[in-house]
């Protein structure tokens, strides 16, 4: 697999779109290209942020945060951590 082919596969890999039979070749190329491969894969994870940031933020119910923080405080109490 050329490095360009590896790059195409890496972009599919980070979004989980590689087929199982492609994964084997991808992992072999990943080992072959070493640090350059890892660097490129790391950069590809930026695609995740990009897709999320392209979405229009959605409003959450105010009650969700109250419930979340109550759960966190309960967890802190259970673990003995001092409440903030």
């Amino acid at each position, binding site marked *: 697999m050329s490095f360009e082919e590896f790059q195409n596969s890496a972009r599919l890999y980070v979004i*989980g779109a590689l087929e199982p039979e492609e994964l084997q070749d991808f992992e072999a190329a990943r080992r072959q290209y070493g640090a350059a491969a890892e*660097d490129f894969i790391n950069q590809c994870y930026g695609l*995740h942020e990009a897709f999320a940031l392209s979405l229009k933020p*959605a409003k959450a119910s105010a009650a969700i945060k109250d419930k979340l923080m109550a759960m966190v405080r309960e967890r802190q109490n259970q673990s003995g951590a001092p409440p903030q």
Partner: protein
Amino acid sequence: MSSIAGPSLPADPSSETAARTGKPIATAVELEPGALTDVELMLRIQAEDADALSQLYDRYNGIVKALILRIIHDETSADDLLQEVFMEIWNQAKNFSADKGNPLGWMVTLTRRRAIDALRKRQAYARAEERFQAEPEQQPLAWVQNVTEEDIHASDTRVLMAKVINSLPVAQQRVIELAFFQGMSQREIASHTNIPLGTVKTRLELGLKKIYDGLKELKDEL
């Protein structure tokens, strides 16, 4: 859709395969002067500072919920999952390392994985698919459909990201939508759309490359 089971998602964001380096592609939110950075908040969350989690929630709940909603298409479930995701951020905070990437990337990877898992576990795939198919074909990308001409000229990060994605041919946008937001494999996309597998692969590769290249340019500008 031939199967509920989808492709293997990338590994848990706390693991090495999800580790990311380098600067973030963009800053998601403008911080008030003196506000703690995302990394500073994460460090405080690691020290079990609940107020830091509260601040992180205020900063990113809209983005996280939008991502969840885009995947599961269910408002009530999205709120529940939003709460679960931030609880997981609290519980898994110790696995976050600033050396490996930025907090938003870590949260997005965690959220997407969790939302797609939820979609599969709850066997809601069929219902989500119905809702997805009910969306007008001419607007396959709800994720950018609200971008107006006025928005296009704005410098808001979201709009810039949407602009990059919106520049793709609709056919490429659609396969990327199915892969990223629905967690479909190439075969599942081929089955779902009646497009040959090779065409699906080509469209995914071309589309992702264009987005990746566009983001690199954007990153250099920021």
